[in-house]
C-alpha cells in the first residue's frame, strides 16, 4: 500500500533502496517480468473476443432482423434493407392507430414513473432512516410481494377496478403497474438513501433547516442516480407490460403499444412489415432510456436490494 508513495521521493540516498530493484530488474528479464502476469491474470485475447463476438451476434441479429423487415418494401426477401421505405411505419402509425397507442403508453409510463418514484421515495426514506415497530414486518411484506405474480392477480384486480369503476380507464393500468413496481423500487431507494451519510442531514438541521428542507437540499441531489434508476425501471416496466392493459382496457383508442403489437401478431395473416415497424416504434423509447441509464444499471443494482 505504501509502495507507490515511496518511489515518489527518490531524492534521498535511502529513497533509491526500495525503488532500485524494481527498476533494475526489468532489463534483466525483459519479457519474463511481464508475460507470466498477463497469461495468469487476463484471458488470452482470442478467448475474450471470440465468445464476445458470438454473443454480440446472437444479441444483434434479432434487432437487425426487425429493422430489416420494417425498412424493406413488402414482398422483398433481400437481406439488406434497400431500397428503404417508410410505408410500413406510415401504415402502422395511422391505419393501425399506433399513434394513439404511443400517446397512451407515454401517458401510462409517465404517470407510473411519477407515482412509483414519489411513493417509493417516501417509503424508502422511512426504511433507511428510522427504526419503528412495523419496520420488520413491512420489509418482510415487501420481500414476500416479490413472489406474488401480477399475472395471477388479474381476476381479483379486475373485480376491484370494476368496483371502483376504473375499468377501461388508463388510471387502472397506472395503479396496477405502480403497485407491482413499488416493492422493488422501495428496496432499491432505501439502499440509496442509506448510502447518504446521516451526518449530512444533521448538519443541515444544525444550520436551521427543517427536516423537509434538509432532505430537499442535501439528500435529494445525492439521490439522483438512484432516482434515475428507479424512475427508468418504472417507466420501462410499464411501457413493456401487457396483461394489465389487455385485461383492463377494452376500447380500441385506450390501448397501449404492447396490446397493439399483440393484435398485429394475432391477425389471421400477419402483416410482417407492419409488425416489424410497430416493434421498432415500441423499441425506440426503451432503447433511449436504456442508453441513458445503462452505466448506472450495474451500480444501481449493487447499491440496492440485492446486496440487502
Amino acid at each position, binding site marked *: 500500500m505504501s509502495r507507490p508513495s515511496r518511489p515518489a521521493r527518490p531524492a534521498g540516498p535511502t529513497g533509491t533502496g526500495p525503488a532500485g530493484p524494481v527498476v533494475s530488474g526489468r532489463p534483466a528479464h525483459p519479457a519474463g517480468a511481464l508475460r507470466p502476469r498477463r497469461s*495468469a491474470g487476463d*484471458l488470452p*485475447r482470442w478467448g475474450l473476443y471470440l465468445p*464476445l463476438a458470438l*454473443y*454480440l451476434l*446472437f444479441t*444483434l441479429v*434479432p*434487432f437487425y*432482423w*426487425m429493422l430489416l*423487415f420494417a425498412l424493406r418494401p413488402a414482398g422483398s426477401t433481400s437481406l439488406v434493407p434497400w431500397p428503404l421505405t417508410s410505408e410500413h411505419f406510415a401504415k402502422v402509425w395511422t391505419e393501425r392507430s399506433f399513434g394513439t397507442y404511443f400517446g397512451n403508453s407515454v401517458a401510462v409510463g409517465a404517470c407510473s414513473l411519477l407515482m412509483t418514484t414519489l*411513493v*417509493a421515495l*417516501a*417509503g424508502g426514506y*422511512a426504511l433507511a*432512516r428510522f427504526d*419503528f415497530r412495523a419496520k420488520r414486518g413491512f420489509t418482510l411484506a415487501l420481500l414476500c*410481494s*416479490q413472489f*406474488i*405474480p401480477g*399475472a*395471477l*392477480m388479474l*381476476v*381479483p384486480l379486475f*373485480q*376491484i377496478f370494476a368496483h371502483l369503476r376504473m375499468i377501461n380507464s388508463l388510471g387502472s393500468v397506472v*395503479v396496477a403497474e405502480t*403497485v407491482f413496481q*413499488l416493492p422493488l423500487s*422501495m428496496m432499491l431507494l432505501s439502499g440509496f438513501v442509506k448510502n447518504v451519510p446521516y451526518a449530512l442531514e444533521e448538519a443541515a*438541521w*444544525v444550520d436551521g433547516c427543517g*427536516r423537509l428542507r434538509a432532505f430537499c437540499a442535501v439528500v435529494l441531489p445525492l439521490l439522483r442516480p438512484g432516482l434515475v434508476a428507479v424512475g427508468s425501471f418504472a417507466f420501462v416496466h410499464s411501457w*413493456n407490460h*401487457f*396483461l394489465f392493459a389487455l385485461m383492463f382496457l377494452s376500447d380500441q383508442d385506450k390501448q397501449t403499444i*404492447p396490446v397493439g*403489437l*399483440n393484435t*398485429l401478431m394475432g391477425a389471421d395473416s400477419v402483416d*410482417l412489415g407492419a*409488425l*416489424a415497424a410497430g416493434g421498432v416504434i*415500441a423499441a425506440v423509447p*426503451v*432503447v433511449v432510456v*436504456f442508453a441513458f441509464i*445503462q*452505466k448506472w*444499471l*450495474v*451500480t444501481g*443494482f*449493487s447499491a440496492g436490494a*440485492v446486496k440487502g
Partner: protein
Amino acid sequence: MAHAAAVPRKSPVPKPPPARARRSRTGAVPRRLPYLLIAPAGLLMLGFIAYPVLSVFYYSLRHHNPTKPWRNGFAGLGNFVTALTGDPQFLPTLGFSLRWVAAQVALQLLLGLGLALLVHQSFVGRAPARALVFSPWAVSGVLTSTIWLLLYNSQTGVTRYLADLGMGSYGTSWLSDTGTVFPAVVVAELWRGVPFFAILILADLQSVPRDLYEAAEVDGAGRLRRFLHITLPHLKDAIILSTLLRAVWEFNNVDLLYTLTGGGPAGETTTLPLRIASIAVDSHDFGYASALTTVAFVILLFGSLVYLRLSKFGGEAR
C-alpha cells in the same frame, strides 16, 4: 462596515437555542413520521396486493362463474379435487412449467455468468460492448415475441434462408412443430433473460477485493482455481438470490408464451399461469382459476423455502 461586522458577530450567540429547539422538534416527530411516509405504499399494497391475494384464497374454495351463476356457492376443496382428478390438462401444464423454469434458469445463469466474466475483463471498447450485450434487458416480452416471430415465421423467417442454403424445407416454422417448439421458445426467452443475470453478477463481481486475486496469484493458483475458490464463493449469495427471483419470474412469465405460441401447438407450451389466464379470460370460471392460482402460490412458496434451505443462503462460505 462596522455595522456589517457587528451583525455576524452577534448572531452566533443567539443561534444555538433555535437550533436546539429545531432538533428536539425533529426528534419528536419520528414517532409518527415513518408511518406517515410508508402509508401511501402500505395502503396501495394492502388494497391491490394483499386484498387480491386473500380474495384468491377465498374464491378458490367456491364455485364462482359469472356465466353460470346458478352454480355459485361454497365448494370446499372441490376445485382442488377437480384439478388433480378431473382436469387432464393440469399435470401436463405443471410439467411444462417446471421444464420451462429449469431450462431458463440453468441456461440463463450459465450464459449470464459467462457473459459477466467476459465484460468484466478490461479491453478496448468495453463500454459499448456492455451496452450492446445488455440491451435486450429492456425489451418487453411482447416485443421479444414480435422480434422472434419475425425470425421464426414460415414464409420469410430464418427457415426460408436456411432452405435457400439447402438445409430444411420451405414453409416450415419451428414454432408449429412439437419437436422444435420448446428449444425455439427457450432461445427467444434466453435472448431477453441472459442480460438480467449478467448485470446482477457483474455488479457483484466488481466488489470482489482485488488483493484476494493477487494473493492467490502469488501462491501460484491458476485461473480456474482462482475462479472456483475466490470468485464463485463471493458470488454465491447473489447467484442464489438471482436464480430464485428468476425462477419465480419465469414461472409466472405469461407475456412471451401467450403472444409467441399462445400455449400451442397442441397445448405443448402452456404453463400453469397461462392456463389460469386462459380459464379466467375464456371460460370465466373464476373459482377454478383461483384454485389453480392457490396451487401456484403454494408451489412457489414451498419451492422457494426448500431452495433457500438447501442452498444455505447467507450462511458460511465467503
